């Protein structure tokens, strides 16, 4: 079964089978969209919540506001139906909690942006493992929609 690695800012997809994997989610968010009937899966690795005018050449998956619509478009392209899409997400951690870089951590801002956008598109979030102070690895099995999240020194969880 092919395993596709999704790097920061990227969006990848698979139909029928395959594993979509993203490694090293810190403040970033890994998002998956799944249409169980069409067996279509899309994964994005989102870096920041809002796109910036001075970074117009960025891939859409880098920012939540451009990434979520691009992920939906990719799912539809592979034959998914929007009303059947379900989302899962992992990440949005704050690895340096004592620094108080922002009043709301970037991880938290990412969680809120992704949650709001999915809601706007009417896509339910059916599983999540977010926030906290540790990094995560996320694997998405397109065959059955299962998503596993692993972290250093913790037992893997299925979301």
């Amino acid at each position: 079964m092919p395993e596709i690695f999704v790097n920061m800012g990227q969006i990848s997809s698979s139909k029928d089978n395959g594993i979509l994997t993203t490694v090293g989610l810190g403040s970033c968010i890994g998002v998956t969209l799944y249409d169980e009937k069409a067996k279509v899966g899309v994964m994005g690795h989102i870096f920041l919540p809002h796109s910036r005018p001075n970074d117009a050449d960025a891939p859409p998956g880098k920012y939540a506001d451009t990434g979520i619509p691009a992920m939906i478009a990719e799912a539809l392209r592979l034959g998914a139906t929007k009303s059947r899409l379900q989302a899962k997400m992992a990440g949005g951690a704050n690895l340096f909690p004592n620094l108080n870089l922002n009043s709301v951590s970037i991880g938290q801002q990412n969680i809120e942006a992704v949650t709001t956008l999915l809601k706007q598109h009417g896509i339910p979030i059916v599983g999540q493992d977010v926030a906290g102070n540790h990094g995560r690895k996320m694997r998405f099995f397109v065959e059955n929609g299962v998503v596993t999240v692993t972290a250093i020194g913790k037992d893997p969880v299925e979301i």
Partner: protein
Amino acid sequence: MRNMKLDFLKELANIGTGHATTALSQMLSGRLFQLVVPDAQMLPFTEAADYMGGLEQVVVGIFVVISGDVKGYMACLHPLESALVLIRLLTGEDKAEIDDMGRSALQEMGNIMVTSFLNALAKMTDLLMVPSVPGLAVDMAGAVWESILAGAEVTSKVTVIRTRFSTEGESIEGHIIFLPDDEDFNRIARKVGLGDL
């Protein structure tokens, strides 16, 4: 980033790294530390974590916010094996993983290195640069790295200085990232007579 700017940033980082290494050497009195290869590279931000040896490798990241006349961010990253050697040198204890004592030793070391790095630049430019208390994370390289980039609002490229120290036959690897605010970076350049870069 134009070449002159990159060269100047490399030069600043080299000066700062030299001083930081001296400070580290003094902290580990009696053991000679030698800076083997300082090597600076500008990398697309998505490739930086891979350059450090894989996204899943455990690393120690020290992250500092700079305030004063020059604002910005600074970070040091060490592979786990190098961090364990550092902890052994600092505390005299040989451990397989990083416990609370190890964390505080690394935090203190990060503090000293960052402070001496910034002091060297402050002396040269007469600009005040004050580091925050360091943040410390022991986690997957990818997670530490992207959290630093997101925290410092780096969205395109980043200059990474790779350093290697050796002591008593052991090698310690580290990566230093110095990210001054754009406008403040120009102030540094003007202070040393380079004009706006």
